[in-house]
């Protein structure tokens, strides 16, 4: 049971009237994994995630979340997942610890309220009313409400959009902590560095399709090449692309040594996630 994937999606499609927002997406998320969906706004990330969360029906394809079809909205499934929506409100008069404790009552085996508030960094705001919280604090309350039921799987739809860099790093720490608690995380983001810093695997999504999947460090290595660059003694910058940098370097350095010159600014680079992302999502 626990070896089966947390999420399995096959040929998922979703149309709104004439508009096809999701055009045949396939992916799976393993248990305990932080999986990222990276793509520009309007790529179909939120549509896909909201189908997995049970908010939307799919037009076609098959979807399994913790062994359930989310479209049937079984309560058993809602007890085992946590959802942080892109935006959602809360009663303005409610106190932080009060609403977290209220939500705890929905679940068979909730986590401890104080422990969850500490995990998201709101322990000092426990008695504040929601209307007194800043935007970032409300986002942490969203996370606390999603965590209180001790979910196996948590959905984070653009969890750090609008955060300053420091708050973003703090949020990443929290998300890593979720993984160490044994949770599976599916997050969407349009921040490259977020995908790179957090995700075990990333799916690059555009126009309702998955363009590439893999660990952020390996993504695109098969498609693009190594780049070797150096400056000639004459001052000219040369760049060569190769699949085998070992042989190329041997040839270059051998020739340089024979001539008694230095290869200034010699560098071997692999395409970064950013290069791959920009190449894949570029408009033709």
């Amino acid at each position, binding site marked *: 049971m626990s070896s089966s994937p947390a999420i399995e999606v096959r040929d998922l499609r979703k149309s709104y009237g004439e508009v096809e927002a999701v055009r045949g997406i396939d992916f799976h998320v393993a248990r305990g994994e932080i999986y990222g969906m990276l793509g520009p706004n309007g790529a179909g990330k939120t549509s896909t995630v909201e189908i997995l969360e049970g*908010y939307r029906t799919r037009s076609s394809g098959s979807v399994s979340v913790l062994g359930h079809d989310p479209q049937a909205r079984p309560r058993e499934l809602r007890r085992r997942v946590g959802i942080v929506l892109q935006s959602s409100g809360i*009663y303005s008069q409610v106190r932080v610890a009060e609403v977290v404790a*209220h939500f705890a*009552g*929905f679940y068979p085996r909730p986590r401890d309220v104080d422990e969850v508030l500490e995990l998201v960094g709101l322990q000092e705001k426990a008695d504040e009313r929601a209307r007194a919280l800043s935007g970032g604090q409300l986002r942490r309350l969203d996370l606390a409400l999603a965590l209180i039921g001790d979910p196996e799987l948590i959905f984070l739809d653009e969890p750090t959009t609008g955060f300053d860099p420091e708050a973003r790093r703090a949020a990443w720490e929290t998300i890593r902590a979720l993984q160490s608690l044994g949770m599976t995380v599916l997050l969407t983001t349009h921040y490259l560095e977020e995908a790179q810093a957090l995700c075990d695997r990333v799916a690059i999504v555009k126009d309702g399709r998955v363009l590439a999947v893999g660990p952020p460090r390996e993504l695109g290595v098969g498609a693009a090449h190594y780049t070797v660059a150096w400056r000639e003694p004459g001052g000219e910058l040369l760049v060569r692309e190769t699949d085998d940098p070992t042989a190329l370097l041997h040839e270059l350095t051998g020739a340089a040594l024979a001539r008694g010159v230095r290869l200034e600014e010699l560098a071997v680079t692999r395409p970064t996630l950013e290069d791959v992302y920009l190449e894949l999502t570029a408009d033709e």
Partner: protein
Amino acid sequence: MSDVALAWSQYRLERRLFWRNPSAAFFNFVLPLLFLAAGGAILGSNQAQLAKLVPAIAGMSVMSTTFTALAYNIVFLRERGILKRIHGSPLPTISYFGGVAANAVTNTAMQIVIVVLVGKLIFGLPWPPEPGLLVLFVLVGVVCFAALGVAFAHVIPNFESTAAYVNAVFLPVVFVSFYVFDSASAPQFLRTIAEALPLYPLIHGLSGAMVTGTPASSLLDSLAVILIWGIFGIYVAVRGFTWEQRRS
């Protein structure tokens, strides 16, 4: 927790939040008192007129605490994304709406008690001669107007326009019902309209229960009209319900 225990938990949260919003709590109790005071000041010691004012205000209280309050609340919760969050949690729909409806019913019950007490202690009317019938009409009225309030929320496109939409229904319905109930010489077409809407039959029934001591058997027509509106309200409330802000 069982579905009932979850409804109770939701009810307790709704009550706490209600008291934390002082202006809403204030208007909930002061509004019927204001209407009674204004009516009492105009009618002086005319007992026959006061005996009509009290059930009319009681009927209006049922409508404002359920229809108006729920239409406002549902639109607010939907537009703020609170409904969507609840919908994604394991809280059963029946428990959620059980708690929300019980909260509205509590406000209705408190207002009816206030209206009855003012009628007895200030206007010198007798205690309601048919208390069982009073409870029955309040209950049926609550179910009908609560359902219509939730159904009507579906029509309201955004929170900013809620007041306009709600008052466009509430004020004319209250006006025509009060006028027809008060004036024996009201034109027949207005009487026909009022009798087909749910508020006039409710006031008529409450008057029978609170003032004239009419037997239930002669109020069956009124009961039937309220029930038919209630069934229509429930149908539209359930079928048309949306948990999310509409994408525009």
